[in-house]
């Protein structure tokens, strides 16, 4: 929070969320217009089968073009991607997304930890990880990996979260670079690469 440095050289903002995170996104997304040379990937815990509805819901709320994720979809700056249900989302070296149907992690598929760790390996310092509201412990390991790889970590202020467990757990174990409430999250994102 204190550091308040503007993030530059970011290639990817990866956002993890569980229960109560969609509400946050619905508030943030309308405030974003363009993503200067970075992409956003959303990894949300969701029920299978409701795939398209979530993407449509998000697409309605934002001017940023939303791209459907299939296996080996290229990750392009300026676009927003939503991890599909029932697959883990992984990142490849050539800026391509891969899917994986292996066992659930933290009772979840997609698991936030899995995607955060994979993104950390590929994007290192050029990665910003943001963890939102949720009622479990997914995301903490992932944020640690991002930190270790030199990326920037941001956690929603648990007081502003509908379900504080997930962000609180991350704060306890990772000492994130920023702890922000919803309004400041929006401001933070608009400053990336600006």
């Amino acid at each position: 929070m204190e550091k308040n440095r503007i993030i530059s050289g970011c290639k990817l903002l990866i956002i993890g969320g569980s229960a109560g995170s969609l509400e946050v996104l619905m508030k943030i997304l309308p405030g974003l217009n363009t993503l200067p040379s970075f992409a956003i990937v959303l990894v949300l815990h969701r029920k299978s089968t409701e795939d398209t509805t979530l993407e449509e819901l998000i697409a309605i709320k934002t001017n940023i073009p939303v791209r459907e994720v299939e296996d080996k979809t290229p990750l392009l700056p300026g676009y927003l991607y939503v991890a599909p249900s029932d697959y883990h989302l992984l990142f490849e070296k050539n800026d391509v997304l891969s899917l994986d149907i292996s066992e659930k992690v933290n009772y979840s598929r997609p698991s936030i930890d899995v995607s955060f760790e994979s993104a950390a390996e590929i994007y290192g310092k050029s990665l910003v990880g943001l963890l939102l509201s949720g009622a479990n412990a997914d995301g903490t390991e992932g944020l640690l990996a991002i930190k270790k790889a030199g990326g920037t970590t941001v956690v929603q202020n648990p007081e502003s979260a509908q379900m504080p467990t997930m962000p609180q757990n991350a704060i306890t174990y990772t000492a994130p670079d920023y702890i922000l409430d919803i309004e400041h999250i929006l401001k933070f994102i608009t400053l990336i690469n600006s």
Partner: protein
Amino acid sequence: MIDDRELEVLINEVYEYHGFDFGGYSRASLKRRVDRLYQLDGFSNFSEMLSKVRSEPGYFKRMVEEITVNVTEMFRDPLFYKVLREEVLPILGTKPFIRFWHAGCSSGEEVYSMAILLKEANLLHKSLLYATDINPIVLDTAKKGIFPLQMMKQYSENYMTSGGKKDFSHYYTANYGFAKFGEDLSEKMVFSEHNLVSDGSFNEFDLILCRNVLIYFDKDLQERALCLFDESLAKLGYLALGTKETIKFSPIQNRFRQLNREKIWRKTE
């Protein structure tokens, strides 16, 4: 954890010593699987793992079993099966004899699901289901047709969503926490090892299913597999992939027409 360079060394050595080529596998997932095995087996450094893989054929076998992802379900994506039931099988049913190929069938749940569809469409007697995988352990399970009983509730729901009208429990007998599927379903199945990286076409098929296997391959290897399927499909045959896989961007795509929103393509020539 092993690093990127070590992973490449492992891939090369495995090819050299055992003739298995994982060079075309997607690295992100492969690395996770190798890391998992490294931890599971308590190696303290990479060269320890490497020498075990090199010199112990038994351990190499274990490695193949562990780095392949074998997670599967019966009637996974029920709406996909509904389209098979309502749109594909009625057309295939007009043929005197129908051949299926499940490439990457894992422990067989997909194959038994298909056999149930065929039985209900009264087509099983004139069908033959070839089911292949590189992992011999999952093939053994598939041959037995024995799956965990605790999964049956979910499978039964999937089955009903796919348009199934029967009582799903008629298809198996429950015993000691397992569900054994009847031989009336399995008698038309042929299981065998087949490697999509290196093996060729072995028959002509009317429907090839290869679901959630290509996600583990890079673009080049995907292309190889898709060409193999193209070669192995009869005229007007069908190709079915997983819900997030596609033949778009591949050279075979202009010989195929997509059926609808499900990932089913029909060969047009």
